[in-house]
Structures are given as structure tokens and as C-alpha cells.
């Protein structure tokens, strides 16, 4: 029954920028400081204080616009959005309304169990954040204005998504891009990347959209999925029961996993936008755009594609390695030193990711640097050590910071490739296991594994497995 309905989702994402100072004043944007310690006449909204635009905010907006295929407006203006709320000291928020800085962009999304799809971006504009309200005091609400005037980009998508999975794919990609660009720290728990979802349903085949609800308070990918799924189900049930969806703002309650109407607080929104006379128009020249475009880093989608096409990596490897910029940079530094992308990829995705997770460090703080890891890989490929011994070398480097060659020399881990030495060990193994030797010679081929294992064990892992195999075969068939 539910499949008769199509879900329509549009997303508004607020991206908090990583500038050191606020958008219109010099106060610090550092998170978690004592209340109202990072305020001044501008962000307190004191009479006569004048805002001046932080140029780095414009740079961040242009970067994000270019990375999401937007048109960068040569001329844009700031507007006042007027409403009263205790966290908004001026009685208006400085934002952009007509003439935002970026328009008409798109992102291509893809993923497991998702058809490739282009999601339109209507606009990206710059604005200031509001302060923070604390509700736990007995007598009233408390206002902390440290966050007031913190720079935000609002990224508004077209209503192009048709499932929670598509919405998540879009959000993850946008998140990846702003973090790659370095314009946002991406910390969703601290609210650096937050999302409102406009959700509606309509019978398949209907061209006009259904009435939408706007769901707020979505600060993790998991909550966004839960909230959308809940909302879709709620709306379909409502319609099936003969009811009507009303246009309203709903708050997601993560504890209960439901969305709730905020109607109590809702009033007719009439923001009376008008151009802010305190701020001059913004003109962005082609030269400015070109300069930023030239300095853009390679983005995750481009990296993924390059890893597949030029380095010949499987799609899975390419997507894991390109997901985060520091990881991609580690991998690329490694490949630059050891030109065997697949071997590099296996080690980064295996040992390196495993070890940093186990030790709870970031990839940038990984004590086995790309140089040191390249040292291990060289010794695997020139048969000095086996892959198995290499793992021991890796953990020794992790502990000591020494080079692979130092550790191999100190611990005597060099593979035994001297046939004379191996012959002696093989003699011992054959002498010690007469029953198995007889069975093998009687046709039980799979005992070969047993013999190889015994020889490897006797050599403390240092024998070259390929050579052991070859020598054993010769000796046992004799």
C-alpha cells in the first residue's frame, strides 16, 4: 500500500565555517568557551555598532560554490531577516535573500543500492548564526551570545531526493566536500554541520508536490534517516486515513525516534527581508573566482575516479581511501614512495586503518609514516621479508619509530632463502613426521600445507614460503 506513494525531500544544510573570527566582528569563534566571553558591541547588537564582512567567509562561500558546481554571482547583497527571539540580539539576522552569492549548482550522488543521480542545489548564501539558549534554569531561559554572529553557509537543495538513502548520500557528499575544502570542521555533534529536511509524499505519477513538513534538529546521519523514515510513514498514514498533511515545522526527538509538531511556537512567518543598509554590496570579480578555483584541492569524487582509472584500484578501495582528505594524502604520499597502488591500498586499509583505530589516533598522527611504511613494502617486494613478518615489523615500527631495515637487521628477520639452510630444516621436519610423509606419498596431497607450516614454524617465520613449497615438493616426491 505504501509503495503507492513517492517521497520528496529537499534539504537545507547549515555549514558552520572554520574562520578564526566571526562574520561581522573580530570576536573569536572558538567552541565551548565560558558564556558571553566572546562578544562585542557588534555581536551583542548594541546601538551604533557596525558590521564589517570577514573576507575569509566570502572565500569559503566561493570555494564551496565552485566545488558544488554553482554559478558565483558577480554581485550579491546582504539582507535583514526580521524576527524576535531571545537568541537574536538585533531583532534581525543578517543573511542573504535576493541575490545570494551562489546559485544553480548540483552534486552527483551514488552509492550501494542507489541509482546514480544528480541533485540540484538551488542556492548557497552567507549568514550569521544566532546565540544559544539554555532552558534548564528554574526562573527563565538563559542566553549565551558567544555563537551569535558565527559565520554560516546555508546550502539549499532542490526537492530532488526520493528516499532517505538519497538524502543521506547527498548529505555525506556535501559533508565530505566542505571538510575537504577545510571550510568546515564537519563536527555534527557540536552543530558545525546541521540539517533541516523538507519532507512530503505524493501518489506516484502526480506532478505537483504534496504538502511538506520541515523537520529540524537533525544532528547526525542516523537521526536524519530515522526522522525522514518516520515522517514519510506518518504522512502516508495520515493521508490513508483521509487526513491532510499540514505545512508546519516539526522537531525530531532522538530519544523517542519521532517528529513532533512545533505548532505552539509557530506563528505566521513574515520576515520582512530588506537590504541591510549597514553592509555594502559584494562584488566578486572573475579574477577572484579564478584565483580560488586554481587553489581548490582535488575533491573526493575526482580522487575516487583517479584512483580507479589511473591507479587501477577496485571501486571499494578507491572510495574508502578518498573518503577523508588526511587518509587520501597518506595514501598518496605512500604511493609516491612505493609505486604499487594495490599493495599500498591493502596495507593502508588493513594494517594502518586497523592500528589507528585500535590505538585511537588520527591518520595524521600515525607513527608509521608513509616513508616508514614504504620501507616495509620494499622489503616485501624484494623478498627480504614475508607479508606475515612484515606485520611484525609494522608493529615494531609503531612502537619504536625505527626504519624497517633497522628492525629487520636488529631482530634478524631476513627471510631464509639459502637452500642449504632450508634443506636442513626440511630434513628435520621429514624425520620428525614419518606418518604424515607416508600418507602424503600415498596421495594425501593436502598434507603439503602441514609440512609448509612445520617448516615455517621451525624457521620462526623467516623461511621464504614460495621456496619452502618448491623444496618440499621436490623432496617429498623423491
Amino acid at each position, binding site marked *: 500500500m505504501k509503495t503507492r506513494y513517492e517521497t520528496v525531500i529537499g534539504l537545507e544544510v547549515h555549514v558552520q565555517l572554520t574562520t578564526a573570527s566571526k562574520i561581522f566582528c573580530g570576536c573569536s569563534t572558538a567552541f565551548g568557551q565560558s558564556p558571553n*566571553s566572546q562578544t562585542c558591541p557588534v555581536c551583542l547588537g548594541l546601538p551604533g555598532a557596525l558590521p564589517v564582512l570577514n573576507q575569509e567567509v566570502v572565500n569559503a562561500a566561493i570555494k564551496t560554490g565552485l566545488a558544488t558546481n554553482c554559478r558565483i554571482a558577480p554581485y550579491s547583497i546582504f539582507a535583514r531577516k526580521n524576527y524576535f527571539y531571545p537568541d537574536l540580539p538585533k531583532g534581525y539576522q543578517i543573511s542573504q535573500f535576493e541575490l545570494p552569492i551562489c546559485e544553480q549548482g548540483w552534486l552527483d550522488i551514488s552509492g550501494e543500492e542507489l541509482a546514480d543521480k544528480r541533485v540540484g542545489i538551488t542556492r548557497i548564501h552567507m549568514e550569521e548564526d544566532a546565540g544559544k539558549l539554555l532552558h534548564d534554569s528554574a526562573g*527563565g531561559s538563559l542566553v549565551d551570545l558567544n555563537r551569535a554572529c558565527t559565520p554560516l553557509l546555508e546550502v539549499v537543495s532542490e526537492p530532488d531526493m526520493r528516499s532517505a538513502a538519497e538524502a543521506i548520500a547527498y548529505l555525506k557528499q556535501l559533508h565530505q566536500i566542505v571538510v575537504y575544502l577545510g571550510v568546515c570542521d564537519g563536527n555534527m555533534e557540536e552543530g558545525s554541520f546541521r540539517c533541516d529536511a523538507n519532507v512530503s509524499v505524493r501518489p506516484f505519477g502526480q506532478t505537483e508536490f504534496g504538502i511538506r513538513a520541515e523537520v529540524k534538529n537533525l544532528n547526525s546521519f542516523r537521526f536524519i534517516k530515522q526522522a525522514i523514515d518516520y515522517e514519510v510513514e506518518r504522512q502516508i498514514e495520515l493521508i490513508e486515513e483521509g487526513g491532510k498533511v499540514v505545512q508546519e515545522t516539526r522537531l525530531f526527538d532522538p530519544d523517542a525516534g519521532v517528529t513532533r509538531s512545533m505548532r505552539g511556537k509557530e506563528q505566521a512567518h513574515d520576515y520582512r527581508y530588506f537590504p541591510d543598509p549597514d553592509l555594502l554590496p559584494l562584488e566578486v570579480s572573475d579574477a577572484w573566482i579564478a584565483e580560488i578555483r586554481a587553489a581548490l584541492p582535488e575533491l573526493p569524487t575526482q580522487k575516487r575516479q583517479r584512483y580507479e582509472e589511473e591507479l587501477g584500484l577496485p571501486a571499494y578501495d578507491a572510495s574508502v581511501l578518498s573518503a577523508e582528505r588526511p587518509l587520501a594524502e597518506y595514501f598518496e604520499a605512500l604511493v609516491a614512495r612505493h609505486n604499487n597502488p594495490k599493495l599500498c591500498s591493502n596495507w593502508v586499509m588493513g594494517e594502518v586503518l586497523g592500528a589507528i583505530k585500535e590505538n585511537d589516533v588520527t591518520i595524521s598522527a600515525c607513527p608509521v609514516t608513509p616513508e616508514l611504511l614504504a620501507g616495509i613494502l620494499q622489503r616485501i617486494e624484494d623478498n627480504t621479508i614475508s607479508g606475515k613478518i612484515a606485520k611484525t615489523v609494522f608493529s615494531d615500527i609503531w612502537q619504536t619509530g625505527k626504519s624497517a631495515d633497522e628492525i629487520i637487521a636488529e631482530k634478524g628477520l631476513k627471510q631464509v632463502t639459502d637452500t642449504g639452510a632450508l634443506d636442513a630444516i626440511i630434513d628435520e621436519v621429514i624425520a620428525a613426521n614419518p606418518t604424515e610423509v607416508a600418507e602424503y606419498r600415498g596421495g594425501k596431497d593436502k598434507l603439503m600445507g602441514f609440512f609448509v607450516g612445520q617448516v615455517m614454524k621451525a624457521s620462526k617465520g623467516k623461511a621464504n614460503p614460495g621456496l619452502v613449497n618448491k623444496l618440499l615438493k621436490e623432496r617429498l616426491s623423491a
Partner: protein
Amino acid sequence: MKITEEDVTYVAGLARLSLTPEELQTMTGQMDAILDYVDKLNELNTDDIVPTAHAVPMANAFRADQVRPSIGVTSALANAPQEVDNCFQVPRVIE
């Protein structure tokens, strides 16, 4: 009359103003007169004029992204009618 008393009541509501019946009447008349005056602009031909967002023919005033000292919590709260734990205290806001 371009402006009705309903318009003025609505705008007053948005601005959190309460007006006496006399004030409502006065304001309605005054706002109507202001709009009449602004209507004079319609006598001009503005076909080739781009919408004006700012009265000064300038663009691009920026500051560098540098942190400057804040005024400190004592000064910030100096005019607060009520303060608790370094915060402004306001009547409880319904969530």
C-alpha cells in the same frame, strides 16, 4: 486609503507594539500619507535603472579574518536587566 487599520495592527504585532485605538487611527493616517509621498517616485521613468540596494555607490568593504579582543563578560552583561551564570536571563521561552 492604501493603508487600513488592519495593516497597521498586523505590522504593530510583528514589531511587538500595542497601540491604543487613538494611536491606531493616527498611525494609519500617517503611514498612508508616507506611502502617498513615496508614490511620487512612480512618476519617474526607472526602466533602465537597476534596483538600488545601497545608497552609496561603493562595494566590498572587508576585514581580515583576525581575532580581536572581546569586551569581556562583565561589560557584555553590564546592561542586562537580569543575569545568571554569566548569561542574560529572559522570561522562559517555550520549546
